[in-house]
């Protein structure tokens, strides 16, 4: 459903993407792995229109994607960004409601809200607290929960496990699998490579702006040289 070809993007003079091509098919979980500064976040930002590519195309369901973030959301893609990006002067509840901003189905929104609270009981406890006052991990939960509220066709997650306790990290991956089962395709960037490889259908390895390697997780895991180079 998502097809990216020969994508280039730059911050001023720094070329962060240099000809990246990837694909996400209906119902898949796809992981993008790579070391610090490889350009993973830049790739995701370019997909969601936060950044504009200098070259290359981003297609969704066979159509060229608009380059304006809010229109991208309209197409059914939601991006849970790096660094949480919580609305700090909105309450937890309001943050979640913004997640469902473009949706009209009131009843279903209510249901989804209850579900998010079930996934992250902490958020229910803190529902009237300002987002800016949450702990780091709580903010991360809120960011993921907010993304879920959009009920997207494709969900893009940038390091969703960052700053979470081990127990919750495991939960997050469970949740990702769960929403995938319900029909949402997932594109995930993770530092926690082992866990990501466990749940994904396919993975890409990225370094300094280019895709180095792609394939099934088993294959990648069995390639010792790659594992060493990128994952330590």
């Amino acid at each position: 459903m998502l097809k990216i070809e020969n994508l280039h993007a730059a911050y001023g003079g720094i070329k962060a993407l240099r000809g990246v091509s990837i694909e996400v098919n209906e119902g898949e979980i796809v992981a993008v792995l790579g070391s610090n500064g490889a350009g993973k976040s830049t790739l995701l930002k370019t997909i969601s229109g936060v950044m504009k590519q200098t070259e290359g195309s981003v297609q969704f369901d066979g159509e060229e994607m608009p380059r304006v973030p809010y229109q991208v959301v309209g197409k059914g893609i939601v991006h849970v960004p790096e660094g949480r990006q919580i609305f700090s002067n909105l309450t937890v509840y309001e943050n979640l409601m913004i997640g469902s901003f473009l949706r009209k189905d009131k009843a279903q929104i209510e249901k989804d809200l209850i579900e998010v609270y079930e996934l992250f009981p902490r958020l229910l406890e803190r529902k009237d607290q300002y987002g800016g006052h949450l702990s780091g991990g709580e903010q991360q939960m809120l960011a993921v929960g907010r993304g879920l509220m959009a009920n997207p066709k494709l969900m893009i997650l940038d390091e969703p496990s960052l700053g979470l306790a081990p127990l919750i990290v495991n939960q997050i991956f469970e949740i990702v699998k769960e929403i995938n089962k319900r029909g949402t395709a997932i594109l995930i960037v993770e530092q926690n490579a082992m866990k990501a490889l466990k749940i994904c259908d396919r993975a890409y390895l990225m370094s300094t702006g280019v895709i180095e390697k792609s394939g099934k997780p088993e294959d990648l895991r069995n390639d010792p040289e790659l594992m060493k180079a990128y994952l330590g």
Partner: protein
Amino acid sequence: MLLQQLINGISVGGIYALLATGYALIYSLLGFSNWAHGEVAMLGAYIGILSVTALQMPFIFAVILAVVGAGFISVFNEKIAYKRIRDNNSPTMFLMIAAMGLSTTFQNLAIVVFGPKFKMYPQILPVGAVKIGSLSVGLLDLVSLGIAIVAIIGLEYLITKTKFGLAVKAASSNMGTASLLGINVDKYIMLVFFLAGTLAGISGILYGMKYTVYPQLGNVALKAFIASVFGGLGSVQGAIVGAMSIGLLETLVSAYIHSGLRDLITFILLIAILLVRPTGLMGKDIQDKA
């Protein structure tokens, strides 16, 4: 006489309030003081007066034209200056400086185009006064107070109860992320500027009818700015409370202490209040934790 002075104070505060809410609206969204807001009111007042006198329009059309016109001027400011500055990722302060530049530009444009003279609105609405015993209440004051109350209640509803309000609040917190979640931030910003502009337009016309229309009319917005700080920047209710307090304070100081000390006492009180409540009477300061 005290009662009469209170009435005077409220009527002065009413006009400040209408202007101050527009201020507060833009501040709450973009976090900057729009110093060109007063000039939008001034231009609105001119559109109104010219429509009535030069174009011989019926009064009600003139009012609509002025209010909508002011809304568009406000949006125009956003489009030509503020939006670009935001897109440049310049510090917020730049918005305020640009607003000051626009304010100077419009004020002097008005002098060039309309001339430096003072203009009176023809007496269409009742300018007389209701007499209750020795008290006198200006009819126009009653009308403007009514309009102010309606506008302000509507605004409060819009901000706290609607999706529009939620979107604006989100955008004000983090534009990038708001857009990432499907909010067309530029559209909402434009709407807010339009709304603030119409409020300015209304206050411009009321001010013009009550006093006079002239290129420096926008300078009263300074009072509105102070009022909105008094009440807490970005808080619409605060702006109203602040505006009323300043209206009353000015009147009472002039009446019972000394005119020359009017602004001095206002400022001293303002500083005193900020020392006790650093974000004004009703302002909130939600800082990200360390």
